[in-house]
């Protein structure tokens, strides 16, 4: 059966051109870039070329790009590195309630180390309020970290405006742009950000390679100690094959940004329209306009997300859900709770994220089948408009978040 992959926010297939770029680095150009002889020097040059490609993709100077082992490492480095280096100035950090766990759990870790963290709430669309941010800033605030675009509901935060506020106060500003790159323009000069995290596997590159942009002069400690790689800031023999692959992938998504985004947006709107018009008792999560071009996130009343995912998988469609039942930890998505959804509603969530290869036929197939799947699962459900959820059960089930 043909598979229709609609989980590009989770990861993307590596583009064949990217694979072609990286392959010779496993066998032919295998040298250690730190070595002085020819094999090493050649590889070193390729790494620097990739650094240039990444820098161009986000309008940075190549000397401000540091390769990491993942987007998660970039987030960890940015937050822990700034916290450690600047703790004499203050121990207060501001973030939001809808960050990726790579940011949230790092902040929680720092709280255990004596730092104080303010988690800004978001409105029903997932946007933080600039006034809340202004009010949260204190004399001892050393870092603000707010994501560029949310991985679950696709909401795009007002990064430029946040950057202006934060810069005025002389505070360091980090943004997790893992979901933004390749989907919306990312320009570190325009955005007033000091640090920015990105990851290759969301932009048709390989998994396990990321980068942190660190604006020149920003005081930060190292996270990974050891050798002198990455200009003494991030130890570890370079993952050359994936670094060149990341460079190529970044170049490609930047070159095709407008076309890809227009294509995804068209299909996303088709999907949203198809679902909202044909399926009763459904809500669209996230912002109607300020959202990633490939992101659609719905909640279907009275049914559970994993059941939807399994039903879709059977007919060849891959998607994801924020339901407690799919999380392993049995906690509903912290993002869906943060936008004010009761746990019972978050239960029926479905995220479908479109990619550059998704077609109109794919979307039509998904909408047609989803109508039947939802109907079938609702027939199986003990709850409906006349028999609503027993909130008491969910209150018990609801675990506590910020």
């Amino acid at each position, binding site marked *: 059966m043909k598979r229709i992959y609609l989980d590009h926010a989770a990861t993307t297939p590596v583009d064949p051109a990217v694979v072609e770029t990286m392959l010779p680095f496993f066998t032919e150009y295998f040298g250690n870039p730190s070595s002085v002889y020819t094999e090493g020097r050649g590889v070193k040059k390729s790494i620097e070329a990739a650094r240039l490609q990444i820098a161009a993709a986000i309008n940075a100077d190549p000397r401000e790009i540091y390769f990491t082992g993942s987007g998660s490492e970039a987030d960890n480095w940015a937050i822990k590195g700034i916290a450690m280096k600047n703790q004499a100035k203050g121990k207060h950090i501001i973030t939001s309630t809808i960050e990726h766990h790579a940011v949230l759990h790092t902040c929680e870790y720092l709280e255990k180390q004596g730092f104080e963290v303010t988690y800004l709430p978001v409105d029903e669309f997932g946007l933080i309020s600039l006034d809340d941010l202004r009010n949260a800033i204190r004399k001892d605030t050393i870092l603000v970290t707010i994501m560029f675009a949310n991985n679950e509901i696709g909401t795009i935060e007002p990064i430029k405006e946040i950057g202006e506020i934060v810069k005025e106060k002389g505070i360091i500003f980090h943004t997790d742009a893992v979901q933004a790159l390749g989907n919306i323009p990312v320009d570190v000069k325009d955005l007033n950000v000091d640090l920015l995290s990105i990851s290759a596997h969301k932009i048709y590159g390989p998994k396990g390679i990321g980068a942190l942009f660190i604006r020149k002069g920003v005081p930060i400690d190292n996270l990974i100690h050891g050798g002198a790689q990455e200009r003494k800031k991030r130890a570890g023999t370079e993952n050359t094959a994936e670094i060149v692959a990341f460079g190529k992938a970044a170049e490609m998504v930047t070159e095709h940004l407008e076309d890809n985004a227009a294509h995804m947006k068209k299909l996303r709107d088709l999907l949203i329209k198809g679902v909202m018009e044909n399926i009763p008792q459904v809500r669209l999560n996230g912002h109607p306009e300020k959202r990633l071009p490939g992101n659609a996130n719905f909640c279907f009343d009275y049914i559970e997300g994993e059941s939807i995912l399994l039903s879709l998988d059977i007919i060849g469609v891959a998607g994801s859900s924020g339901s407690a039942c799919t999380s392993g930890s049995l906690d509903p998505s912290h993002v869906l709770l943060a936008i004010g959804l009761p746990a*019972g509603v978050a239960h029926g969530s479905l995220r479908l994220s479109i990619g550059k290869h998704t077609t109109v036929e794919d979307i039509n197939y998904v909408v047609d089948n989803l109508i039947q799947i939802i109907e079938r699962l609702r027939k199986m459900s003990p709850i409906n408009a006349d028999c609503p959820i027993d909130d008491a059960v969910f209150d018990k089930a609801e675990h506590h978040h910020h």
Partner: protein
Amino acid sequence: MEYTDVVMENFTCPKHVGEIEGANGVGQVGSPACGDIMKIFLKINDDGIIEDASFKTFGCGAAVASSSMATDMIIGKSIEEAGKFKNSDVVDALGGLPAEKIHCSVLAAEAIQAAIEDYHNKKAQ
């Protein structure tokens, strides 16, 4: 996550979905773990035999499969036998469940006990 073929069969084509007419024992339970809800309907005859059983479930694949399997297993049993029905019986019949999904089978066992209790309560009235 790994579901066995039996789980997937019971999820894809669940048996005994819906409400049975003339059910004289109905039990609904909610899971404090993730918030799922399961409702079991029993039709018990004068000899105390479960003639028919059905379910409605708001939950994951394992919950649906457990409901399907559990209802199938208790049909034809006496309420005494069904009263001893445990979640491990469902898990075994399904060929196992992932560790984090065991609580879904507990829901099925509890819903059956709640339905039997409901039957006794109604009868006592």
